[in-house]
């Protein structure tokens, strides 16, 4: 007989700052995304799992979008997908059958990382635009082949990374590029959480099902925390630094969740860029204190970005005079130096303000942007180059974690010509 345990757990719904913006702006710009019913965009999705379902909901908030096909190897996903679409959307167990359907304009790929290469390339070659969940692919070689396929087919490819479209990230980047924080020398990025990162399996004894549902735990399919969480922050660092790193060192191990998983439950990587700056990324599944946070450190200030918003903090003015204005006498010696405790800054900052007409949920904004790219054959912001850059950084970061060696980018990756 199985042991039964009584457990309880509590969680808060966080109240985030800011009341509901209740008043609509009369006479403001019309919605450029509004379309007549005849201009529908029909999507197909490969992999409507947890992330795929979130994307489906976000896409269905864009006027004129419907799902014309759903593909998964795990049949219970079909009923879940139907609940989301609210209709009897055609289902397929083989993605090749989905791609043979005639009424589909674009494909959303949200399968496990190791399948991205196969599914994205097949979708592109079927003549469809692709919204490909991050990362682009699992290895450097796979990123190369996907990148070449995008160029070869001429179809639009948007990397599934919502923070690229989050208004407060966009505004922070604008202010950083305008020099508000001086010269950026380091980015410290965290994605810390306190849970086992595991999803329940209806039949826990079924190992095949376990690997299917908890694919993120297994190296055959997954790039671990660096791929699933770090990519967002890596993409932002790429935008800030405007270049690829020259090397990476890494560490990762299973410190707590010794439950059969193969990927580390905590990782730390440090990317070095040629001009001098550094990106440090840390992720753990055993402590939530830092949460999801990006700290951009510049000579003039700091930007702290989270999932909900961002704040800018400015460095105190530094004495520039060679002769101190106030001399201090210590032990009879006249000196211009004085001791200042290096306490962490705890004062207020300037919240990053996003214009109301640009506010919105990052997933929705990313999906809406992709639909606009499909309708107008427009090139996405998070394009194949961003995808290749971040995909390669993740792949080589994981290589550094696994080997314990400093990985030199020039020796392992070159953007395909």
């Amino acid at each position: 007989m199985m042991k039964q345990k009584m457990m309880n757990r509590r969680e808060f719904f966080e109240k985030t700052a800011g009341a509901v913006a209740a008043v609509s702006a009369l006479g403001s710009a019309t919605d450029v995304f509004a379309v007549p019913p005849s201009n529908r965009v029909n999507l197909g999705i490969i992999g409507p799992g947890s992330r795929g379902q979130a994307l489906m909901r976000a896409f269905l908030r864009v006027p004129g979008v419907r799902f014309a096909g759903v593909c998964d190897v795990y049949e219970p996903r079909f009923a879940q997908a139907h609940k989301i679409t609210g209709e009897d959307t055609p289902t397929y167990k083989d993605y090749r059958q989905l791609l043979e359907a005639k009424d589909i304009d674009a494909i959303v790929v949200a399968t496990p990382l190791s399948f991205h290469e196969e599914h994205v390339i097949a979708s592109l070659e079927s003549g469809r635009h692709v919204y490909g969940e991050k990362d682009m692919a699992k290895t450097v070689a796979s990123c190369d082949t996907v990148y070449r396929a995008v160029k070869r087919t001429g179809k639009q490819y948007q990397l599934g990374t919502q923070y690229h479209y989050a208004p407060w990230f966009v505004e922070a980047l604008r202010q950083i590029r305008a020099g508000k924080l001086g010269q950026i020398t380091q980015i410290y990025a965290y994605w810390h959480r306190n849970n086992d990162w595991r999803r329940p399996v209806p039949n826990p004894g079924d190992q095949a099902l376990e690997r299917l549902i908890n694919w993120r735990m297994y190296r055959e399919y997954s790039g671990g925390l660096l791929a699933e969480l770090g990519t967002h922050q890596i993409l932002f660092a790429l935008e800030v630094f405007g270049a690829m790193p020259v090397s990476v060192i890494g560490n990762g191990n299973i410190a707590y969740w010794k439950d059969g998983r193969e990927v580390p439950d905590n990782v730390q990587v440090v990317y070095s860029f040629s001009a001098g700056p550094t990106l440090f990324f840390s992720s753990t599944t055993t402590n939530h204190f830092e949460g999801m946070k990006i700290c951009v450190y510049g000579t003039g200030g700091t930007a702290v970005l989270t999932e909900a918003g961002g704040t800018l903090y400015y460095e105190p003015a530094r004495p520039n005079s060679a002769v101190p204005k106030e001399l201090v006498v210590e032990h009879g010696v006249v000196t211009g130096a004085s001791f200042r405790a290096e306490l962490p800054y705890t004062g207020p900052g300037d919240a990053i303000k996003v214009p109301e007409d640009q506010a919105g949920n990052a997933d929705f904004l990313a999906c809406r942007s992709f639909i606009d790219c499909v309708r107008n054959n427009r090139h996405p912001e998070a394009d194949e180059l961003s995808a290749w850059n971040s995909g390669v950084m993740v792949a080589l970061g994981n290589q550094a974690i696994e080997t314990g060696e400093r990985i030199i980018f020039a020796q392992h990756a070159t953007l395909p010509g």
Partner: protein
Amino acid sequence: MGTLFTIYLYAADSRQADADFGMAFDEIDRLDASLSNYRPNSELSRINRSAFREAVTTDPEVFEFLRRSFDYARRTDGAFDITVGPLMRAWGFFRGSGHYPSADELRQARASVGWQKVLLDDAARTVRFQVQGVELDPGGIGKGYAVDQAVSKLRESGVESALVDAGSSTIYALGAPPGKDGWPVQVPRPQDRKQSIATVLLRDNALSTSGNYEKFFKLDGRLYCHIMDPRTGAPVQGVLQTTVIVPQATDSDALSTATFVMGPGKSIKLLESFPQASGLWILGQLNAEQRVTWHWPVVIPGAKEAGGFRGSRSQAIHQSKHPSKSKPGGDSHP
């Protein structure tokens, strides 16, 4: 939603329990991110920002949630109304403990409150506000919806025994603890919520309680609570607490508010349209309360059954203060 959620469950081992907890709380987080009016990036906030300017397309789940919410408004003649937010703000309950509004504040708030001011287009799946200033506040139903969806996930995962609690005001009992007939749930006493007025055994049922003590202020000897009657634009008076038991938490959450506003007399017809519904009202004042029940599963000392209850709420209060003058609940029975 600004609510503390608590889940109790029985599982084969801690690993399975952790996975089930994680899945259920992920579902609650997902719904909070979609339906919270505290989160500026939620889908509901997007609708609130834009739906006067243009018809806003939303996904089937959010649309169905709104349709269900407005169905309650229709069935209660507006006693339950998720557009009540501006009134809450005018009375100072949105982020404070309340104040008496000026006539101008009240007039402005009432101009933008009313479920008929929102158009839902089923075919286009769009939401449109007919007047400026309308805002959707899921406070009276969102917790229950989140509980139902979390329970649905637990069921899918094979959990047979769990209690999902949203802020202790909405509770769903999935199955029963092993060897037991149900989950014991206490209904608090309005005077002292650490004490209970009744303990009921819940099994595959939801219970919700609304009380005037959650947020209130006193002025000139009168107590003004945070539960608004959207039709009058003022806080409900003379009701201390309502508790409703029905099979779904979405319904119990909405019904506990609706029956608080409507009082027992007018609530019965509404409750009759739900299978296995029961209700408990505590009316009057703290030191002179009247208890009214309808199909309540256990005996409540001093309670009157509302089967033939036709009196208005003010009559009920009067009866409570002067019990010798008339028979509560039976005075206008046809």
